[in-house]
């Protein structure tokens, strides 16, 4: 087992409406693709944002590569952010900036002395990687959600991060684009990067997951490698896993083995 | 892309720089107009009271601002120390014997200090030296000695008032002398008496001559009248030499067939007439300064008494009989206070 990349310790999160989760512990490991699954509204997006340090939890702490988001010095937090990328569920592109500016900003902000040619090259390369059309001067509002997600992906990888957070990357996009995105994630996984992914889509889990955590009603029902989780006897976990595994059968012989071993 | 967006940096740069330039230009203009960069020359003065004195108040010389008051402090002797700054360009106006005078503004707005420069061609006073104010004895003396250049028509009313006051006290002195003469205490005082009349007329003459510049033209008639009177008094064969005659005595006055008496009488008549004219002239000033008319009225009354005394002399009970009853002459002007409400 590799070292932990992100540790969530005794997390609690309360909103004005109530408690989303309390006393939650979860670890994501370096160089693995961890998938967090659960029904809509169970708090998995919030959990992912806490793990990425975008939201400060109301209790407990989130530690990213040994650095606690809430107590670390701002400079260290900035460095940590530059080692990570985040793809939002709704893409969350900056509406008053063009596609080019959206991808370019993280680069030029953190590297003011970088040559313009170098910036151009990196932006184009990120665009090529995600298979973006030549729509550099368009505003996000003119793009489809799928294209927006591609731009968001390009923005997240333009500075070549070691850790990638993906919030339901395949939600609301057509199958062709979904295929493209899954390919991208697999490519990243192949490069040995740490990926933390939240999804409801069993296909995604089946394609890319190394580790799996199943969450429901603010609780982690099961966590571990895919095979470990597969041994869980909780009917709700089995419910979710069945869907995943039925999808997985299509893709991987290993999973079929797993399935036969597990049951 | 719109012009403003394309050239955003230039437009914004101009917008900010032009505003800053405006501020700088305004500050420079303020500094020049308010003489921030003129260190000027410092002087100090002393007043009895700080009433009407404020730091920053201007110092005027014939209406020009030549400096300002820097500070006003109460010193250990309960006098008011005033430090002032005279602008460099006016420094050479601060001649020795200059005096400061507090000037009251209309309705308490404005006001300031007036510089009355010394009447001489000496080089200006050393910086940081003492400029006496009209509140100090030194200042008063300088003014009295005529060493100070006072504007001719600088507040004519107070000048007239001051001079009329002198005239009045002269007439008073005269009456005392006449009284003692009647008492027979001194013969020689009669000489003083007539000299007093002479001096009174001269001073009245000078009042009217000095104030004539700014006043109505018919004053020249009055002054001519007075000049004639003075000439008569100075006549070598006239009244004064006769009176100055060491042999002159009460008997002489009364034993020359009333000639001397008649002369004195006619002089007093003329003075009275002159005063009536002066009063007529000052009537129009009465609204603002009723005191003038009051003083002149007093003078006329005094002269009337003098007239009575002369009549008394002529009708000395030892020689003739008593002071006759005089029909009172109504004042040509009535003060508001004289009216019945």
């Amino acid at each position, binding site marked *: 087992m590799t070292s932990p990349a992100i540790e969530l310790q005794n997390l609690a999160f309360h909103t004005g409406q109530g408690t989303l989760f309390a006393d939650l512990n979860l670890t994501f490991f370096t160089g693995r693709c961890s998938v967090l699954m659960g029904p809509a509204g169970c708090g998995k997006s919030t959990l992912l944002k806490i793990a990425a340090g975008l939201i400060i939890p109301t209790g407990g702490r989130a530690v990213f590569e040994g650095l606690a988001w809430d107590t670390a010095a701002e400079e260290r937090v900035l460095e940590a952010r530059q080692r990570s990328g*985040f793809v*939002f569920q*709704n893409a*969350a592109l900056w509406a008053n900036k063009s596609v080019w500016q959206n991808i370019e900003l*993280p680069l030029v*902000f953190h590297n003011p002395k970088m040559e313009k040619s170098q910036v151009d090259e990196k932006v184009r390369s990120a665009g090529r990687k995600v298979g973006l059309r030549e729509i550099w001067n368009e505003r996000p509002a003119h793009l489809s959600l799928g294209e927006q997600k591609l731009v968001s992906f390009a923005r997240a990888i333009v500075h070549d991060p070691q850790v990638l957070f993906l919030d339901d990357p395949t939600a609301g996009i057509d199958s062709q684009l979904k295929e493209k995105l899954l390919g991208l994630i697999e490519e990243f996984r192949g490069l040995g990067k740490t990926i933390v992914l939240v999804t409801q889509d069993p296909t995604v889990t089946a394609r890319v997951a190394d580790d799996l955590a199943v969450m429901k009603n603010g609780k982690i029902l099961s966590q571990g490698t895919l095979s470990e989780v597969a041994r869980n006897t909780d009917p709700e976990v089995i419910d979710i896993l069945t869907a995943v595994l039925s999808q997985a059968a299509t893709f991987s012989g290993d999973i079929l083995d797993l399935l036969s071993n597990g049951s | 892309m719109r012009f*403003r967006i394309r050239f955003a940096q230039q437009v*914004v740069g101009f917008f900010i720089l032009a505003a800053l330039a405006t501020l700088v230009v305004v500050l420079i203009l*303020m500094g020049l107009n308010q003489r921030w960069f003129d260190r000027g020359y410092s002087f100090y003065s002393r007043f009895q009271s700080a009433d009407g004195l404020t730091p920053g108040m201007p110092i005027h010389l014939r209406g020009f601002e030549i400096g300002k008051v820097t500070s006003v402090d109460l010193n250990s002797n309960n006098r008011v120390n005033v430090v002032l700054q005279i602008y460099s360009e006016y420094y050479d106006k601060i001649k020795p014997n200059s005096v400061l005078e507090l000037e009251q503004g209309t309705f308490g707005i404005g006001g300031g200090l007036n510089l009355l420069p010394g009447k001489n061609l000496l080089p200006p006073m050393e910086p940081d030296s003492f400029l006496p104010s009209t509140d100090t004895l030194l200042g008063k003396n300088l003014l009295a000695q005529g060493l100070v250049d006072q504007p001719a028509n600088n507040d004519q009313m107070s000048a007239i008032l001051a001079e009329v006051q002198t005239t009045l006290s002269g007439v008073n002195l005269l009456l005392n002398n006449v009284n003692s003469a009647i008492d027979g205490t001194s013969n020689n005082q009669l000489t003083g008496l007539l000299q007093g009349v002479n001096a009174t007329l001269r001073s009245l003459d000078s009042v009217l001559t000095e104030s004539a510049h700014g006043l109505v033209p018919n004053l020249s008639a009055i002054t001519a009248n007075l000049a004639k009177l003075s000439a008569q008094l100075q006549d070598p064969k006239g009244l004064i030499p006769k009176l100055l005659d060491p042999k002159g005595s009460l008997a002489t006055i009364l034993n020359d067939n009333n000639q001397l008496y008649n002369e004195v009488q006619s002089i007093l008549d003329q003075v009275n007439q002159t005063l009536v004219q002066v009063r007529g002239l000052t009537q129009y000033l009465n609204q603002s300064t009723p005191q003038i008319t009051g003083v002149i009225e007093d003078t006329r009354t005094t002269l009337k008494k003098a007239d009575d005394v002369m009549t008394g002399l002529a009708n000395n009970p030892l020689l003739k009989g008593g002071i006759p009853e005089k029909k009172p002459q109504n004042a040509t002007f009535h003060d508001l206070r004289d009216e019945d409400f």
Partner: protein
Amino acid sequence: MTERKPNLFERVGATTFDLFHNTFYAFGFFWNVLGETFRFRSRSRVSTQVLVMQILFTGVNALFIITLIAVSLGTVIIFYGNQITTLVSTNFVYTILITVITRELGPLLTAFIVMARSGVAIATEISSMVVTHEIEAYLAVGINPISYLVVPRFLGVTLSMVALNLYFNLSGLAASYLVAQFFHPIPANEYFGQLMTQLTPTAVASSVVKSLAFGFVISMVSTLNGFRAQQSTTEIPIIVIRAVGQGFALLIVVNILITLVFPR
């Protein structure tokens, strides 16, 4: 289960708690903004571009309306001022011009215009960015929203306020001069010379300090309220209305305070 309605004590307690919490939050926010402002130079040039655009929108684009108001105000003052001052002292009109245009209404009217234009724009923009997760996106790429979004707006609004106030004064006083030519001609050097003599350093300082403070108030109120949005676009108009209300009230209070602090 039906929820129990909170009683009066609970409601007052909750309101007080909210008030304290919001006040502490606001002060923390100001402190953060000031800290980031001092680091602004060392930050990236991309922040400078945001600053330039902010000055363009807040300052340059408001120049026309500011000039229009200043000219109208100058006209009115010289018109009435001329009638009043002939009774007292001719120089009194300059005191009125300086008091009204430079010390009081210049900064305040400029602030009202800037609040109504840019304050509203900033509150709307920031709150909609919160709702669409754009703020989180800035955080995710390691850009501090305070230093990238708030500081340039703070500096831009404040610089624009100072500049607009100067232009307000310039056009108001120049308009007074031009209008005066119609009924009471004064030579230009006499008019401006008198103004420059009567204009005290205190008046200038008070005017500049006011525009700086107003710039701070406008940018802080609009950004702080903008960040209060949470998840729904329906919150945006409510936030904007609240920002405008708070902004105008604070501007008036701050104006009074500064007027009291600076001697006549």
